[in-house]
């Protein structure tokens, strides 16, 4: 067997040789270790490694140690399905996780269906995974795109009832679907839509859209641009005075730790809905973030936190079921509630989507500040899965 993970396996072997003769539970981690999403894969790996070290040190799952098998998905579904088949049939893993891009999760989910194994994603956002493309063998423990919209819409309802909202998205499929999703939620809580515009990715000049934006006289602007596009959009809005008197809401990727410094003062007052923030004020999160920083030399982000939480759910399910076979573990995971750094998560049996508290964060003095938390039940949205 090949291991990429020296520390965990060393600990695992030490413990296994001393106390437990039982066979280890094998978990495959299929995540991008190279390419565009390698940064996300790194967080996934840190989170999972840390949880495995803790679980193994505390005696493993029902007395059995966890052994991880890593494979690089290269963020390419075509590579991911091949690697998933290898993990299922050659390495004989009991459970698989780590897929990042939604295309890979959907395709690997189908491999899991055909191999009669379970997978869980801790990263993919696409609503399809637990919606139109749901599968009895696929679970998601992170918040999907819709939950962010629900959280923001809940905030909008309370803070800006009857708001007039304008939408500005990047002109590609993901941009259009995030805008469409939020628009639907916002209108359902009584907001009025005053218009929408889509700017090409990597736009250098957003001022051409400001005329339409001002003419529509919105109270609230929703945007799902990301990365350097946000830097340009926000600074240009600031320079033109468009952002005065306007509340700006956005997707969770719009303003991040990576671009907040470049945006500077123009980011002030930006509001978004997230499933995790290091600022969550709970003893569980404090302990987790401290251990994470100590171990990995970096702050956890939502991917690290969601990945860390996953295996505690798997442990609880296997221990409740008393077995690792697919049917027993699936039944035990459905409806399971467990503790994570983000608070209590519950897997909804109807579509295998985890319900979790969502947080509305606002940029204040250049820092993300949690302004409100929305209960998991209020942010989950309807169950649209009809496959099981």
């Amino acid at each position: 067997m090949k291991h990429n993970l020296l520390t965990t396996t060393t600990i695992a072997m030490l413990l296994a040789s001393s106390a437990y003769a039982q066979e280890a539970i094998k978990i495959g981690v299929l995540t991008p270790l190279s390419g565009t999403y390698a940064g996300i894969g790194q967080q996934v790996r840190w989170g999972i490694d840390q949880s495995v070290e803790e679980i193994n040190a505390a005696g493993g799952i029902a007395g059995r140690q966890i052994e991880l098998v890593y494979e690089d998905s290269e963020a390419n579904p075509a590579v991911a399905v091949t690697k998933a088949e290898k993990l299922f049939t050659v390495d004989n893993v009991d459970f698989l996780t780590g897929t990042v891009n939604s295309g890979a999760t959907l395709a690997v989910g189908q491999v899991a269906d055909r191999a009669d194994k379970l997978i869980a994603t801790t990263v993919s956002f696409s609503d399809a995974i637990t919606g139109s493309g749901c599968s009895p063998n696929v679970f998601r423990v992170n918040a999907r795109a819709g939950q962010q919209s629900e959280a923001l819409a809940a905030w909008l309802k309370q803070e800006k009832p009857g708001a007039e909202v304008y939408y500005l998205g990047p002109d590609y499929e993901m941009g259009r679907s995030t805008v469409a999703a939020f628009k639907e939620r916002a209108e359902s809580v009584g907001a009025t839509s005053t218009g929408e515009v889509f700017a090409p990715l990597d736009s250098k000049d957003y001022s051409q859209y400001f005329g339409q934006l001002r003419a529509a006289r919105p109270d609230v602007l929703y945007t799902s641009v990301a990365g350097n596009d946000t830097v340009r959009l926000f600074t240009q809005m600031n320079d033109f005075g468009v952002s005065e008197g306007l509340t700006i809401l956005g997707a969770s990727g719009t303003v991040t730790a990576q671009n907040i410094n470049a945006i500077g003062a123009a980011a002030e007052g930006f509001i978004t809905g997230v499933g995790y923030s290091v600022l969550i004020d709970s003893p569980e999160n404090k302990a987790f973030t401290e251990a994470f920083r100590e171990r990995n030399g970096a702050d956890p982000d939502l991917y690290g936190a969601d990945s860390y939480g996953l295996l505690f759910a798997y442990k609880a399910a296997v221990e409740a079921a008393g077995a690792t076979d697919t049917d027993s573990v699936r039944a035990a995971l459905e409806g399971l509630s467990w503790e994570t750094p983000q608070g209590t998560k519950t897997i909804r049996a109807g579509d295998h989507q985890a319900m979790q508290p969502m947080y509305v964060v606002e940029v204040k003095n250049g820092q993300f500040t949690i302004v409100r938390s929305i209960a998991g039940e209020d942010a989950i949205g309807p169950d649209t899965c009809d496959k099981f």
Partner: protein
Amino acid sequence: MHDRLDISMRANHVFFWILVIVALVFAAFASFSGDVFYLRLATEALILGGLALSIDILLGFTGLLSLGQALYFGIGAYVSALVLREEPSFWLAMGAAGVSVLLAGIAGGLIANRVRGVYFALITFGMAQVVAKVVYNSRELGASDGLIGIPVIEIPLGLITLSAGDPLGFFLLTLVIIALLYSVSAYLLGTPFGRIIIALKANEKRVPYLGYSTWAARMAAYVLAAVIAGLAGALYPMLRGFVSPELLFFATSGDALIMVIVGGAGTLAGAIWGAVILTMLKSVIGSWTEHHLIVIGLIFMSAILFMPKGIVGMLKPFVERNLLRNSARQPKPEPERTAL
């Protein structure tokens, strides 16, 4: 007497037959040991071998560097996937994919064959990127998520019916299809038409002086390559049950180009050997180290430095010498096919 092209093609056949024998031995061994993963990986390698074969027709024979051959592989895969989702019929999917890539190849050829050299490479690259972006952003085609839910089909083959979910059966079927694509390519390149194509690579300016149209020959080679790539692509969703826009990306075209160069450009069989070797290497090295891209890159660089003609290209002179010696012993230099 000893036609160089004839000897060269017969040497290619030798390498292809070795591949077939290795494949059959492997299949027997794999099915005996109850393996699923490596059989399906080998099937994928053969499918990618079809894509590499199409690149070799352009690069190794016509002298055209296509950086966007994944375009036709992807169109074949998407058309096959869309048909299979509606109607799980193998022949319908192959037929629809074949007709679609034929039309797409003609359209692409009309654009790309207006230019030569580096501009041809850039245009083929650009066309593939444009179509990949369109697919990536079309919700009807599954957008960035791709299309899943392609059923495991039953393939009626006259007397027997084969399931695409049976690893051994589908591997053998893919081997037969790739062998057919190889045979058709080899046959066409051996005809007078094939010689015009090869003349294009040698010296394109002289071909019109011999009374042949360079445009028609280039066009024919381009469309032939498109159809081969598309038919190979049509097998992909049957094996993996999904398609995604990544199949059209440069990574797919680039990988296939590496397969051709490692295997040996201008040898046909080398393209398929290259696909098999690279796919197996990627799987083994990928599981061994997360720095697999560096290792693959080093292998590729050393292959170019130390074996510029590729594996088959390097071994081919020995086989050719043997074939020449054998045919010299025979009283009549009749093209003896059974000797292969």
